[in-house]
């Protein structure tokens, strides 16, 4: 209890508004990007000086400013770089959605007909609301750390539900439909996975870091604790087999390995994990034709440029047409027989569209923005008060960074393409909401000095056994 808390009457939380100058300055640049981007798009498409989709841009900019003001009024000392960075990513994505044909995705709500850009605006605003609420309201992480097995159970339930009730879409069973809503649970699952892993590793970190299993001359990490690791491999493979979701499986596994390394600092774990992952990959390649197809398309998309390799070939051409500075927003993506060159441009290939219309400069900028998110996450982790928060922050940032890496590398044919979204840029409610959850949690744990770290929990059976036999 600090002196201030002792003076204030119980039950009353004192709120002192606090200026967030850096965030305001960065948000100003984001708003300028929105305006200039809309102007560029409007001038290209209409040949007059107009700002395309200015209503949507104003709504989005307003939502960003609202979250900024909410945090300022709540007086929290949360990170000031994350919101503008993510806001810029979302803004570039929104510009792209305004530019794309609006009938790619459409939904009718009563008399309201919403096109691609309008739906994206709705999702982005909902996402920002999630960010704002979490950043302002979450002052304790006990609800995350105490119920980690409950969270894991919820995640598994979600997975099973998708398996049983999910609908197939493009050869992958990813979508769960509940009434009028549909969503991709694997997006939410990745957040739950990070929470569970952070809780588990924070509790067993000392054991994982020091125990050894000795078999003859071989010294291995403690084998009993391999079980969760094997379970993770199994889960990853299960996702691939059941849902044909290669991207999510890869993402889960990367996050798992890196968190394990952060928690224990032992390269042996990582080596073992990579070896297991390689064996699993080969097994999957041999066992499943859809994995084989992905790999063969990656190795040589020009073998079947009008069939399996069509999207990749078109994306490569789009990147090539863009050059250094791009052909200009709204000037690229020539239609082939009335269709977009890349069918899934709004979900899987936004990077290719940006590469064509805004050029290499913008693609590199976007990758740098993801690096900024990662840096912020690791800095929040380094400053965190206890291992759970540190692992949680690192894992959350990693989940965004790794996802961006996996899909960007897929778009650029650096690795087999896996159908996951580019965080905050791609169209998609599940993706935007799940990633907003990540950013909101990161902001919430970045605020130091509000709550002391939770007291250590009662020790588990393993630690008790270690303590026994001593006076």
């Amino acid at each position: 209890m600090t002196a201030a808390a002792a003076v204030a009457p119980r039950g009353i939380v004192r709120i002192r508004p606090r200026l967030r100058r850096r965030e305001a300055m960065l948000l100003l640049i984001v708003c300028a990007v929105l305006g200039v981007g809309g102007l560029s798009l409007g001038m290209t498409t209409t040949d007059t000086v107009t700002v395309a989709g200015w209503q949507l841009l104003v709504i989005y900019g307003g939502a960003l400013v609202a979250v900024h003001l909410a945090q300022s009024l709540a007086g929290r000392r949360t990170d000031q770089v994350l919101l503008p960075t993510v806001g810029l990513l979302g803004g570039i994505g929104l510009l792209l959605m305004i530019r794309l044909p609006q009938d790619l995705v459409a939904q009718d709500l009563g008399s309201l007909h919403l096109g691609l850009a309008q739906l994206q605006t709705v999702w982005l605003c909902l996402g920002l609301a999630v960010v704002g609420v979490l950043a302002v309201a979450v002052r304790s992480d006990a609800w995350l750390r105490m119920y980690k097995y409950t969270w894991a159970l919820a995640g598994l339930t979600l997975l099973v539900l998708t398996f049983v009730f999910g609908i197939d879409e493009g050869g992958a069973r990813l979508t769960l439909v509940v009434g009028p809503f549909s969503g991709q649970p694997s997006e939410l699952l990745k957040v739950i996975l990070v929470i569970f892993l952070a809780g588990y590793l924070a509790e067993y970190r000392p054991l994982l870091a020091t125990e050894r299993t000795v078999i003859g001359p071989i010294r291995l990490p403690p084998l009993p604790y391999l079980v969760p690791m094997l379970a993770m491999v199994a889960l990853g493979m299960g996702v691939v087999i059941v849902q044909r979701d290669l991207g999510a499986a890869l993402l889960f596994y990367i996050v798992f390995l890196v968190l394990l390394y952060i928690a224990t600092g032992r390269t042996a774990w990582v080596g073992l994990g990579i070896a297991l992952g390689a064996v699993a990959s080969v097994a999957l390649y041999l066992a499943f034709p859809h994995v084989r197809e992905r790999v063969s398309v990656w190795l040589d998309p020009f073998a079947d440029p009008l069939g399996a390799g069509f999207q990749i070939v078109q994306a490569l051409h789009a990147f090539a047409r863009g050059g250094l500075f791009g052909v200009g927003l709204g000037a690229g993506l020539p239609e082939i027989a009335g269709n977009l060159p890349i069918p899934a441009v709004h979900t899987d290939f936004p990077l290719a569209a940006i590469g064509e219309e805004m050029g290499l400069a913008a693609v590199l900028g976007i990758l740098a923005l993801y690096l900024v998110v990662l840096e912020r996450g690791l800095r929040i982790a380094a400053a965190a008060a206890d291992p759970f928060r540190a692992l949680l922050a690192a894992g959350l940032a990693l989940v965004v960074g790794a996802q961006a890496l996996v899909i960007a590398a897929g778009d650029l044919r650096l690795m087999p393409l896996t159908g996951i979204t580019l965080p905050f840029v791609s169209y998609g409610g599940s993706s935007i909401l799940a990633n907003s959850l990540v950013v909101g949690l990161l902001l919430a744990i970045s605020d130091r000095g509000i709550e002391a770290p939770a007291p250590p929990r009662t020790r588990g059976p393993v630690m008790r056994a270690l303590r026994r036999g001593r006076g």
Partner: protein
Amino acid sequence: MDPFVLALWAVRLALLALVWLFLFAVARVLMRDVRRAAAEPGAELGRLVVVASPDREPPVGAAFPVDAVTTIGRDLASTVVIADAFASTEHAVITYRGRAWFIEDRGSTNGTYVNGSLVDGVVPLAVGDEIQVGRVRLRLERGRR
């Protein structure tokens, strides 16, 4: 050249320039953050790293920040809690006076050792020295700044 086309060119380049201006502004904020973290006065003076611990409580590799006065012992109120059967409740105390480290035994049953020799009275301590409390051995290291 058509002024409209020129203006469009300028707008397109301005868009890219703004994205990079944002990144530049972020980089400046990050640099300032790093510098401030480096200059933070609350940086620890030194740290004790556990080298050997038969009961694994504290675990090997654990590091404790060491302040101007650091008490070591089995007592839960100690700065560094050593839950070893051969450690005393109030075992030893490490102090930082002026610019040097000192260690003093607090009348422990099994004694405190620095680099293998028994501590008698107040003994100076150098960075890299190994302290033995009970069966736990700790190494004094420079603090992280």
